[in-house]
């Protein structure tokens, strides 16, 4: 009995200690960051990028005396956690980010502008445009990523010039599908976007500086109607099918069921592993105008509440923005570097060069917060048109009206 009581007492006291420690910690971080952490940069980074940044961070620490604390995070959860934590003062100084989060991050007031200074010209133009919002640059880009046309050279010997050429070549190859693109039950506007732009119907019009203008919703213009009609026609012809999900498209292409596959670099390693001899081509135009896919840009952004603004800028602009680090990041992730000199070195690989060539004519994915309202109407409407659930023009115009209402 005595022993038991003692154990319980001890347990009780430990429990109290931990719970108090918890309350103490949660409230205490505010104060800590201001004094003891002033010479430590906290950087949120995903697992793949962490290994590369470790070297850059060590070098930076050597030269400046500022410690860099790399915290690994799940990329998919960073946006939400960053928005939740920065206002409390507990967030990092720097985070890895995708450019299309930017509008959301800025309207939450959690990021601050980064001055690339004269190094801005060293990056691919599309990367800097993507990292800009309302005239300010908010991030140091490290990679650009976009979709292109993967061609199985054993089944098709030449790059198709137009969409019809592609269908003809695909039919001639005698495979199960003339070409493959992931659609899925709620469609996939991201992967179908190059066809949409080839009809001259981008989601938003652009300002003079290349940024998107949320007041100019051009998705519903005459080109949009033509694209909707084309979707219905291709859906009826069986070229576009909502049954083809991302897994099925990839599996079928790797099994040699089609010579063409519209997808991004993320599916290249598996296709190569399946023994397919790949060529990367521009996406053929269906509507006559250039088929421009979206470009996604990854980079690093600085917290609005950092107490280490100068060190953070110095680290990002002069270390993460260096050719060495950009090349190292490319080697681990396979995404084309945003720094022009690093990209040119990486373009020795024909796959990277192929995606890069498509990126040169591509457009950045809109980073304005209004884009968040577009997706929910866009995909299901495309899917309804493809499956023939009504008049394409009517459905498309209804969608345009709904987006218009939602973004006001």
């Amino acid at each position, binding site marked *: 009995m005595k022993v038991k009581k003692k154990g319980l007492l001890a347990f009780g006291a*430990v429990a109290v*200690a931990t719970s*108090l420690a918890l309350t103490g910690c949660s*409230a205490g971080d505010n104060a800590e960051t201001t004094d003891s952490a002033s010479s430590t940069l906290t950087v949120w980074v995903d697992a793949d990028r962490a290994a590369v940044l470790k070297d850059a961070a060590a070098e930076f620490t050597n030269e400046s005396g500022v410690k860099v604390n790399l915290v690994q995070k799940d990329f998919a959860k960073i946006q939400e956690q960053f928005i939740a934590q920065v206002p409390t003062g507990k967030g990092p100084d720097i985070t890895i980010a995708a450019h299309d989060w930017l509008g959301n991050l800025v309207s939450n007031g959690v990021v601050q502008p980064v001055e690339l200074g004269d190094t801005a010209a060293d990056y691919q133009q599309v990367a800097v445009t993507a990292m800009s919002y309302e005239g300010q640059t908010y991030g140091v880009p490290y990679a650009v990523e976009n979709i292109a046309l993967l061609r199985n050279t054993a089944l098709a010997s030449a790059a198709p010039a137009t969409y019809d050429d592609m269908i003809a070549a695909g039919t001639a190859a005698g495979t199960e599908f003339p070409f493959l693109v992931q659609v899925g*039950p*709620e469609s996939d506007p991201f992967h179908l976007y190059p066809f949409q732009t080839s009809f001259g119907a981008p989601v938003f019009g652009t300002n003079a500086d290349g940024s998107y203008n949320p007041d100019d919703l051009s998705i519903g213009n005459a080109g949009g109607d033509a694209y909707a009609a084309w979707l219905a026609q291709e859906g009826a012809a069986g070229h576009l099918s909502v049954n083809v999900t991302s897994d099925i498209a990839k599996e079928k292409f790797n099994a040699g069921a089609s010579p063409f596959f519209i997808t991004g670099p993320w599916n290249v390693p598996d296709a190569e592993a399946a023994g397919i001899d790949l060529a990367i081509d521009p996406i053929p135009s269906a509507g006559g105008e250039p088929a421009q896919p979206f470009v996604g840009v990854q980079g690093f952004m600085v917290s609005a509440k950092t*107490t280490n603004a*100068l060190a953070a800028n*110095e680290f990002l602009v002069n270390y993460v923005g260096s050719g060495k680090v950009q090349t190292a990041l490319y080697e681990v992730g396979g995404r084309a570097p945003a720094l022009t000199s690093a990209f040119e070195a990486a373009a020795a690989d024909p796959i990277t060069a192929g995606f890069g060539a498509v990126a040169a004519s591509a457009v950045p994915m809109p980073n304005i917060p209004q884009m968040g309202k577009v997706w929910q109407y866009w995909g299901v409407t495309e899917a309804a048109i493809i499956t023939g659930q009504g008049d394409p023009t009517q459905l498309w115009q209804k969608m345009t009206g709904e987006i218009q209402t939602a973004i006001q």
Partner: protein
Amino acid sequence: MTRSGTPRNAAQVKKAAQSRRAGRIADAASVGVKVLLTKILLLGIVDAISVYALFVLALTQDWLVFTAVLLVALLVNVIYFRRGGLPAKYLTPGLIFLAVFQIFVIGYTGYIAFTNYGTGHNSTKDDAISSLIVSSQQRVPDSPSYALTILERLGTYSFLVTDPAGRVSVGDEITPLSRVTDAETDASGQAIALPGFTSLGFSDIVANQERIAALSVPLSNDPNDGTLRTPDGSSAYLYLSDLVYDEAADTLSDTTQNVVYTANGTTGSFVADDGTELLPGWKVEVGFDNFTKAFTTDSIRGPLISVTVWTFVFAFLSVGTAFALGLFLAIVFNDLRMRGRNVYRVILILPYAFPGFLSALVWAGMLNPQFGFVNQVLFGGAEIPWLTNEWLAKFSIILVNLWLTFPYMFLVTTGALQSIPEELQEAATVDGAKPWAIFRLIKLPLLLVSVAPLLIASFAFAFNNFNLVYMLTNGGPRDVTAGVNVGATDILITMVYKVAFDGANRDYGLASAFSIVIFVLVAAVSIISFRQTKALEELN
């Protein structure tokens, strides 16, 4: 004391008793000291941590939490140093955990439901103002970049800048830039020192970076020429700001557009006369706005009713079908005449071993109309739109849920069946009852007594079965002509998710309000069901 068989003299007995007592006292004393020391040590740790927390809280002037921590720490000390009050000693740690991890979380969710917390309103007003000002500072287009050395004299920092033409100037926050000629330059022509000033190295800059990052050195006496600022301590750029905060009037003025934005305490943002709102704003309490929004906004209220109905149908059917199948199998496998029962039982439990959301994804693939296993193999290539037709999708959800949950019901009912005494059945048989009557009138009521609470729990789980719906159909199929982002198979929790989190605009306030509504619904159903269960128990 113990009485032995042989009589002893009184002195012997007394001596023995004394030594026993002494031994006990010594024993008790030594353990008591150990216990006391442990107690003092552990409470010392608790107190040390509390005192540290109190200091930190006092520094951040967080008086509410400060008081809470102080009271809890005092209470803990009183409880453990006081003699007696044993129940409190056992209960306190648990109660503290309960308060921190349950009551606080629930209370905070409730509080959020009454705020506008969400995209653009997730921080304080001060944060919003500084963020707006910082993002309105624009680098003057095509302005040169200045090579910079930061100087210090008597605690004041100055900028020593070299422009691209090689001209050297110095200035600080009050004095605009002026040309100097006596600066020391390095090989590249950049000025690095000035007599009478100390040049700062990078480590000094880092040590004082908050002050240096906040420095803005006017280019000339005319404020419209802009100010020099440095983002990294080694180069300076020319910036112009177009937002000015007036603390007295609580307004932000846009100097380039001549618009004045006034702080609005009800929306938590700066609003111009024409209604334009500046984002970010800040978090404010909005009273019952979120609840009114949930029930009056057309795009939410309309689907809310149909979704609520479907949620109840889904929850009842998923519990009902799984229970029926589980019970049927349990009865079948409970029959001693059944051979190889254990093998079957193990196979039946398999679906239970898979993670639910993974199974849902696999099923979504199997139900693909064109390439899925179900249509390809079982229906000979027929293109049955399992997940894209409204009614088939509802059917598929219930079917997959049945596949996922019947093993649980099977396990539970097997256990409950085995606990019903065999004699009851024998007695009933002797009385001439048919098997169906035995089951309906004797076994089922007895079974329900022990299983009913579990059924209610399953109902509450099915009511919020987010994983299944989200992974299998994502709430779809959606009727595109309805124009609302809610599909045929959406249940309340997935609808909340879509309303609050879909797209870039999060609305945590609205989501919290919804979760309170869902909580009330589930609680009401549970209370009613538990009342009914009590009636069942009276059978015993």
